């Protein structure tokens, strides 16, 4: 009997709970099963069990399960966390409320500062002080703690956060405070800042601890119920939980510090892009994920995603937002997706997004009463999306509504309906080009060295136009692009990113000290993995140092190979100078300083292995289903060949103008593009001569 290994990814979104199952037969071939069902608040595990049932997956047959959820970000943005009490260093309880004092909307005299998540009467102070070098300036005095906790109880506090000054440098006071709180009030969830991050900046660290405490009971409850529900149906091993750093983590560890999954949604897709890139020999990738509401992009270099801790929620040009100092994949997100609304301002200028028509009423073409023209409407009108195969044939496109909506935009602009639709696509593309430039050209990367990998429901529609503008090497659209995030989850490692701030002048004698910082972090990581049953020998590390010229503030991350010794310092400094010059066009002969480390610890947890298929004949004729006129905006109208994506087989090749349609995605192939289907059924698009 054939043995099938079932790997399942489930993803709980605001509206739908998605399932993607990868069933690997013993001959290495893989079937992909997808299913979708409603999200079921507040008992989210019900939706997960429903979608498993709908997909015909028995939990007991699942060998590996990964789970992504928006529970943390939703609890934050909807303010549905718990009441938090904060304990901090004497003299600094207002740090959380003073914040950074900035007013990004700087001409606006009516700006309103974001309110802190913990009001002043629930922010308590304790004496004791560390220095920035980690010495004890004043001893910790916990004599006031019982009264503080008593006050918190009386106020109905449900979780406690601790953040003490300079705890990144010396954790002793935080550890002692944590232990004493656990002793005095064992039931209360409590988190100290050093458990989440060892980086400096007290406001950011305090806010991170507070927000972690704020969501912890909510997330722990959610994960506990999910685990119990799945186990009761026979799932043998707890699901791994997708994190913001592109890794997965154990359910237990995630329950303790759930804030690490705050931005897990986009992370899996970008991780998938990195992994797929390795598979197809394209390790330098510009990854683009276009959904209904937003487009997100990230740059992958040498197969590595970039992870940062400069993450903020609700931050924009009109609000300072709130920092969360956790490892998050470096991405740029803009309000530009398939449902983004095109609008004309008071001064006759066309804009696309950031407002979205959402799922309801959705684009005008949904026929659900939407009167605004969206990017999707423009794509339909231009023949790029098949009006007779809209949403994989599940929706009859209301072209009258689309025409009315586009005509209105054209009228405001004084142009024809066709021109309005072209304009919408051009402006939407330009918004996305600018986002892609932010992660590439603006950081000193030459886009000509990169492959654009586009996924999500709308990625493939715009990818070629964006790729041409940025003159990328080529464009690749992965197989099953619309469920690519699930693929990413299946490829994830158990991964933790450790950031530790410690200032070290990069000069003779510094090597051993730096090695010791890494050594300590690695030992800690190994121990944590070991406690969870992972063989320490399976744990691998990546070491990054964060460097700057003395007196600067911002750092440049440099990958360090091998042990750090004095002998290695010259090479390290050289690598820093080079990385710095690439990004900023100059270098200085100033002293170099290490500000801290970034250690990546990871271990494989049975990820999916893809096997290449035999390449068949290049003739794509069997997949050709017809022709239609497509408006390529800048390149005019052309008769395009229409291919059925499900019938395109490895080895097939053809030339644009063409459109590839499958139920989840439409790939727009421009005139002159050369297309090849690879052994994993990914679509490679060579752009030909740049205009």
């Amino acid at each position, binding site marked *: 009997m054939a043995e099938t290994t079932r790997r399942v990814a489930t993803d709980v979104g605001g509206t739908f709970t998605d399932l993607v199952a990868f069933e690997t037969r013993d001959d290495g071939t893989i079937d992909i099963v997808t299913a979708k069902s409603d999200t079921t608040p507040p008992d989210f595990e019900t939706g997960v069990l429903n979608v498993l049932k709908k997909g015909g997956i028995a939990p007991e047959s699942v060998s590996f399960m990964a789970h992504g959820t928006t529970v943390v970000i939703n609890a934050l943005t909807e303010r549905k966390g718990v009441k938090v009490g904060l304990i901090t260093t004497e003299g600094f309880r207002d740090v959380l409320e003073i914040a950074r004092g900035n007013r990004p909307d700087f001409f606006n005299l009516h700006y309103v500062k974001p309110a802190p998540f913990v009001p002043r009467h629930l922010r308590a102070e304790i004496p004791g002080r560390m220095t920035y070098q980690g010495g004890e300036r004043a001893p910790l005095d916990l004599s006031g703690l019982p009264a503080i906790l008593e006050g918190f109880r009386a106020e109905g506090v449900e979780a406690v956060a601790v953040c003490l*000054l300079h705890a990144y440098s010396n954790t002793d006071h935080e550890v002692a405070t944590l232990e004493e709180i656990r002793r005095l009030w064992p039931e209360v969830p409590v988190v100290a800042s050093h458990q989440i991050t060892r980086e400096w900046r007290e406001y950011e660290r305090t806010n991170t601890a507070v927000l972690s405490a704020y969501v912890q009971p909510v997330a722990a409850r959610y994960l506990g119920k999910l685990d119990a529900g799945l186990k009761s149906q026979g799932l043998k091993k707890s699901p791994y939980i997708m994190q913001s750093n592109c890794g997965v983590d154990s359910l237990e560890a995630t329950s303790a510090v759930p804030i690490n999954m705050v931005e897990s949604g986009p992370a899996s897709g970008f991780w998938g892009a990195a992994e797929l890139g390795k598979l197809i020999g394209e390790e330098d990738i510009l990854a683009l994920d276009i959904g209904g509401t937003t487009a997100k992009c990230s740059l992958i270099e040498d197969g590595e995603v970039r992870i940062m801790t400069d993450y903020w929620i609700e931050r924009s040009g009109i609000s300072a937002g709130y920092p969360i100092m956790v490892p998050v994949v470096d991405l740029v997100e803009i309000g530009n997706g398939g449902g983004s609304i095109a609008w004309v301002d008071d001064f006759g200028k*066309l804009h696309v997004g950031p407002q979205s028509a959402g799922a309801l009423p959705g684009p005008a073409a949904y026929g659900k009463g939407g009167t605004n023209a969206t990017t999707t409407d423009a794509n339909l009108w231009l023949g790029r999306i098949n009006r007779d195969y809209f949403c994989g044939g599940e929706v009859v496109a209301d072209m009258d509504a689309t025409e009315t909506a586009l005509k209105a935009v054209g009228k405001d602009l004084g142009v024809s309906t066709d021109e309005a639709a072209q304009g919408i696509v051009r402006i939407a593309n330009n918004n996305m080009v600018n986002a892609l430039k932010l992660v590439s050209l603006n950081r000193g990367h030459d886009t000509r060295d990169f492959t654009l990998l586009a996924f999500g429901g709308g990625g493939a529609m715009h990818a070629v136009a964006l790729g041409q503008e940025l003159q990328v090497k080529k464009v690749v659209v992965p197989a099953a692009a619309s469920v690519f995030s699930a693929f990413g989850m299946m490829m994830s490692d158990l991964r933790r990113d450790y950031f530790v701030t410690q200032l070290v002048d990069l000069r003779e004698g510094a090597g051993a000290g730096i090695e010791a910082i890494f050594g300590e972090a690695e030992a800690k990581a190994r121990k944590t993995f070991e406690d969870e049953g992972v063989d320490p020998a399976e744990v691998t590390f990546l070491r990054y140092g964060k460097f700057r010229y003395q007196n600067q*503030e911002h750092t440049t991350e440099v990958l360090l190979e091998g042990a750090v010794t004095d002998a290695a310092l010259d090479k390290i400094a050289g690598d820093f100078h080079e990385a710095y010059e690439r990004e900023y066009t100059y270098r200085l002969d100033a002293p170099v300083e290490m500000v801290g480390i970034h250690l990546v610890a990871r271990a494989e947890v049975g990820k999916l292995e893809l096997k290449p298929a035999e390449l068949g004949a290049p003739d794509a004729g069997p997949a050709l289903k017809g022709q239609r006129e497509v408006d390529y905006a800048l390149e005019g109208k052309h008769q395009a060949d229409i291919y059925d994506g499900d019938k395109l087989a490895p080895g097939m090749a053809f030339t644009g103008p063409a459109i590839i349609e499958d139920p989840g995605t439409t790939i727009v192939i421009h005139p002159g593009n050369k297309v090849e289907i690879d052994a994993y059924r990914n679509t490679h698009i060579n752009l030909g001569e740049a205009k």
Partner: protein
Amino acid sequence: MTDQFTLSVVQAALDSAAEEMFEVLRKTAMSPIIYEVLDVGTGVTSADGALVSSGAGIPSFVGVLDKSVKAILAKEGDRVAEGDVFLTNDPNFGGVTHLNDVVVAEPVFFEGVCIAWVSSIAHWGDIGGSTPGSMATDVTSIVAEGLRLPIVRLFSKGERNEAVADIIQTNSRLPDFVKGDLWAQVSAGRRAARLIRSMCARYGAETLRAAIADAHETGLARALKGLADLPQGSFDVAQEQDDGSTWNATITITPETFTVDLSDAPDQTVGPYNTCHDGALVACQILFKALTDPERYANTGSFAPLKVITRPGSIFDPSPDAAHGYYFETRIRLIDMLWRGLAEKAGADLPAGSFASIFGLVIAGQHPDTGRRYTMVEPQMGGWGATPERPGNDAMFSTNHGDTFNCPVEVAEARYGFEVASKSLGDTAHSDGEQPGGRGVVTRYLMRGEGVMSVGFSHGVVPVWGLPGASDGGRNALSIHRDGNQLEQATFVSKVAIRSGDEIVVSTANGGSARCT
């Protein structure tokens, strides 16, 4: 004619060129006042110096660099060549502010023709002069305020002028910082110039010019739309000052123009409290933009309806030898006066007064752990005014700041030779029927070694104003606590010797209150 979508695409690229320049500066600068306080601005202008786009974290540096470029053009004219990079910091030569703010401006050539300028202005920690940080209060002439760069070439046709670089480094107490900051600015300009040239290669210089002209029309249209919604008429405004004087001005608003007549302003001061005509103009621009079109979108058109009249010999239009070090307090007082007048006399939709001071504090000394020199130059956060609907904001930087970040205590203690003993919100006084002003901040700096301090602030004597019928806010203050004594400091002092163990206590004002609706 270029189609409108192409114009939009090019305009977006010009905006991102200025923003990109700003990002580069923020990431590479050596001085905290650049990368945290964001006392820095970047700009793209047309070939003739009309503002096209600005990258800035603070409104004080939007609409500044066009004035610098125009001054360079006036001086150099046809001699401007490809590969030139100009420096200026002197208000008499397009510097606009004070000597600490150094402008780096570069013409962008395409096919042999100048098509645009990219420039940046940034506050350098020390440009020489008689006191660390260069902002002395006891000077009477600009000559005493530091090194003057009266439009000089750092690069001439691509050739680096080593002499200029050497003179700059030699004249600063922080030579490594100024060198780092200078290169950060040059690098930022290069980045933007490259973007603009690639834009020209893609769309042609003619399209670039058309996009600029179209953007200016949009800027003007936006300004006029906002102007039409303002109360029309002529309003006499006045504000009492800490030195006992009263400033007067007249604001005249019509559907086409917004005129600020500063002819009645006091005579120029002997001390460094003057600002040049362009400086007064920039102050009025901030308020004008806030009233007419508070979004960030800004170009020459956005400010076209604004006229500012100054009287030569006054604090807003002083003689060439006048000192300018604390121009920013004069400028923020001007905004405070105009804001109050519009709120009280014209009934404009504005909150009550704020702590209305940059409150720049300079502490310099030797770091006890590293032995390296440090100079902290930091503005303060304070309380903002209430509206009838809501209390004022607590602890924000002034109107002239924006996306300015305070320095984290954990970073400050590593960088500077003091500890921050505490940093907390001040007390609030609450009256019935009023929305209270926002709270100021009390910060206590405990010195770990000797140092020198300079400070200047407004509203140290005259309290922050409330809206009509509501309570005033507080006052700004600074004192030194030494051996059990509290030594209150005057509003403007420099070269104050600080001892190890001294505590410098900064207390910023609460904002003004408003009657509840």
